[in-house]
């Protein structure tokens, strides 16, 4: 099979994210490219959760509406998702909880006989799935052992019972090659930051970036990383600035609400020229919104947050591979230009699982600007052509380093002088020009396909679904990865002059579209989605056809 999907559903608290990951690893072990979408409401017990695991022989980063196998831990899953099942698809379900036309596994009975806890039910279904997919028991055994270091034995027992009670329905090809590393978007961001030189990570928990905090806290020992969870996001941002002054390479992570609290600190970082990387995982709506669902509603906010005017970098990677690369580069560029760099993620990217392809492109060798001997006496804000002053950390022998949130002179002493104010303002913006120039060396706009009839323009996690849709419709994709400073020249070149331009966004007001119009680009139609759920391939293809016949 070249491309197929498995949906596993049940109640919150039944370990459906974990179950999805195990299925993903099973398929990954057979050399497939994997994408996994996990859908869950914001509660700990009860409610409906499901994971869609898609496997394909080509690179993917989006889910499909239709599934080939439906794994149901309860009746609700069957009611909600039976309509997705492709003709000839298989249902595997708990026959003690529901009735269906498929492979019934008596999970309650099995658990009782094995004396197993309720959380192992999903292992029974996974075992049954493995058999149905023609996966060898040894492969499943190996993965369960790895994924359940605790409770290995009991999970294996339940899985084996499910395996034995099942029958083969599909044929998974023999392992053709070793699978790629399977990581979540947040793990890719974390690893990218580490690769870029991260030494501290400071965050207050907030979906969808909490799992980045958890991941980095887990590996802090391995990487000598300092992970801190302070009292609130205001403290997060200020601690990050303090840490940067002390020589740390530091990142923070949050979602919209936390980013609101960080904005005063963001302006401080801009004014005081303290580098910091902000991972902003978008979720749906203003205020608390839909905490566990996705959105691209914060693009303009990320570009403009804070009073006043200063330079910043905003990037929006599309999948784990891009997230890995751009997290590393964001950190390097933030330190090189002494600016805040925002990585715009969303629930889809942060919590989705992807096969990671490490860019063949080598990471840049971004040189840093420490103070030299000519810098005596040291001046934290010395004027230079690029606007970038040599950055000395505290302490530096013989240097007095003065960092200031007021307009200041070259020494960092407060000023209200008109000429100095204007010069410092220009210095802050000159760094942005230097940054733009540097970005010219990067692939800041991603393109795909050839068709001259239709160009789909999108950003962030919509990249992969647009790519597949474009392939179906014979269209092209043009996707800016860097969103600020906007790579207008590269974008114009990439867009060319298609007959029609349709902008696809996961928000209600077409924010990228408004940026494009600002640069004088024609937007013929927009396809917007703001219900918190990412587009499936089929859904997007239909929506695009509705506006572009």
């Amino acid at each position: 099979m070249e491309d197929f999907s498995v949906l596993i559903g049940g109640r919150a608290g039944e370990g459906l994210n974990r179950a999805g990951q195990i299925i993903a690893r099973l398929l990954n072990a057979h050399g497939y490219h994997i994408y996994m979408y996990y859908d869950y409401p914001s509660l700990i017990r009860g409610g409906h959760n499901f994971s869609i695991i898609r496997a394909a022989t080509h690179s993917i980063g989006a889910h499909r509406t239709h599934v080939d196998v439906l794994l149901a831990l309860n009746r609700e899953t069957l009611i909600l998702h039976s309509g997705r099942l492709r003709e000839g698809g298989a249902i595997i379900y708990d026959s003690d909880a529901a009735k269906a036309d498929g492979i019934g596994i008596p999970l309650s009975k099995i658990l009782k006989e094995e004396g197993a806890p309720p959380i192992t039910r999903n292992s029974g279904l996974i075992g049954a799935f493995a058999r149905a997919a023609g996966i060898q028991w040894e492969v499943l055994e190996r993965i369960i052992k790895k994924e359940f270091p605790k409770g290995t034995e009991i999970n294996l027992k339940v899985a084996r019972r499910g395996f034995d009670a099942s029958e083969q329905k599909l044929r998974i090809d023999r392992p053709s090659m070793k699978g790629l590393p399977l990581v979540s978007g947040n793990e890719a961001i974390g690893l990218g930051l580490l690769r870029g030189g991260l030494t501290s990570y400071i965050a207050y928990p907030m979906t969808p970036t909490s799992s980045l905090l958890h991941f980095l806290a887990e590996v802090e020992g391995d990487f000598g990383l300092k992970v801190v969870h302070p009292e609130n996001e205001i403290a997060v941002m200020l601690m990050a600035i303090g840490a940067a002054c002390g020589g740390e390479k530091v990142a923070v992570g949050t979602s919209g609400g936390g980013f609101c609290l960080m904005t005063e600190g963001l302006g401080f970082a801009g004014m005081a020229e303290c580098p910091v990387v902000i991972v902003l995982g978008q979720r749906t709506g203003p205020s608390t919104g839909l905490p566990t669902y996705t959105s691209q509603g914060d693009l303009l906010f990320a570009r403009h947050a804070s009073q006043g005017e200063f330079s910043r970098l905003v990037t929006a990677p599309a999948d784990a591979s891009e997230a890995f690369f751009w997290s590393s580069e964001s950190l390097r560029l933030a330190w090189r230009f002494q600016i805040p760099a925002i990585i715009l993620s969303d629930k889809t990217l942060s919590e989705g699982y992807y096969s990671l392809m490490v860019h063949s492109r080598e990471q840049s060798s971004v040189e840093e600007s420490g103070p030299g001997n000519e810098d005596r006496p040291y001046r934290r804000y010395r004027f230079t052509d690029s606007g970038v002053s040599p950055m000395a950390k505290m302490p530096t022998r013989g240097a007095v380093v003065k960092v200031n949130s007021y307009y200041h002179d070259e020494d960092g002493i407060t000023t209200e002088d008109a000429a100095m104010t204007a010069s410092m303002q220009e210095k802050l913006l000159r760094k942005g020009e230097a940054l733009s120039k540097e970005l010219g060396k990067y692939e800041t706009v991603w393109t795909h396909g050839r068709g001259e009839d239709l160009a789909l323009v999108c950003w962030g996690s919509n990249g992969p679904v647009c790519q597949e849709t474009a392939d179906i419709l014979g269209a092209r994709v043009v996707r800016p990865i860097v969103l600020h400073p906007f790579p207008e020249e590269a974008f114009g070149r990439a867009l060319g002059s298609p007959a029609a331009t349709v902008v696809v966004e996961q928000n209600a007001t077409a924010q990228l579209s408004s940026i494009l119009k600002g640069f004088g680009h024609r937007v013929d139609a927009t396809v917007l989605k703001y219900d918190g759920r990412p587009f499936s391939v089929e859904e997007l293809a239909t929506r695009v056809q509705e506006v572009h016949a």
Partner: protein
Amino acid sequence: MREEGLISRAQNTWCPGCGNFAIQHAFKNAILELGSEGLSLDEVVLVTGIGCHAKMADYFNLNSVYAIHGRAVPAAAGLKIADPNLKVICCVGDGDAYAEGLDHLLFAAKRNMDMTIIVHNNRVYGLTTGQYTPTSPLGFRGKSTPTGTAEPPFNPIALMLNAGASFVARGYTRRQDQLRWMIKEAIMHRGLSFIDVLQICATFFDPHEVYDRMVYEPEGHDRSSIESAMRLASEWDYNSESRIPIGLFFQGERPVFEDRFRGVRPDIPSRENKIGMFLEGRR
């Protein structure tokens, strides 16, 4: 820059008679003495909020972070996380630390971070021209409360004792020797040192006559006892006209938060290896 001395070239813009001069003076002498006793001034960082007090950042030839209103303490915490050996001193205002940034103050005490917090407590917002603060007396008539406040003040000494600060003191600007001594002790203390310094605002709130009459240095107070410290703290509620004890209320020993960040860093090649190993495990 420091060759020019500890006081910078920045023009001083405090009002004549401002209590900040006395704190600046005590601070300068404390630093000079510590310097002559072997403290490296390169390792001192002065972190301030925003307000009249905060101009300290400009006035000293020391490393400084002139932060934003209420947020000196978390910036200072970040510095300590980066380098636990730094001597970080926060000069903050009462509006700054007790209103806008109270959360950070309490958490710094809870964590017992090894840094010093000096509150320039003039019991008024100076820079914004005279509104009440959390330590203004009940009924204070400020520009935002022309008919008088309806809320009694906090007792920051009691608050900080409760929150876990391991060095808690109160100073008065017109007790120079004690203030200088206290600042020195605070800087050298391992753990969170907190000094609430009673200071007048020459323009908007000047109770120096009351302070002169009421402040006293208690004798025989047991500084190692949190109960005695609490009792002493309750002698004055920042509201009534009662005796005002000044001096070191409490000094204790507790583990310091940032100690867990003293450690070696793996070099860059070993980082790359570790990333590679992690990814290999995910195949």
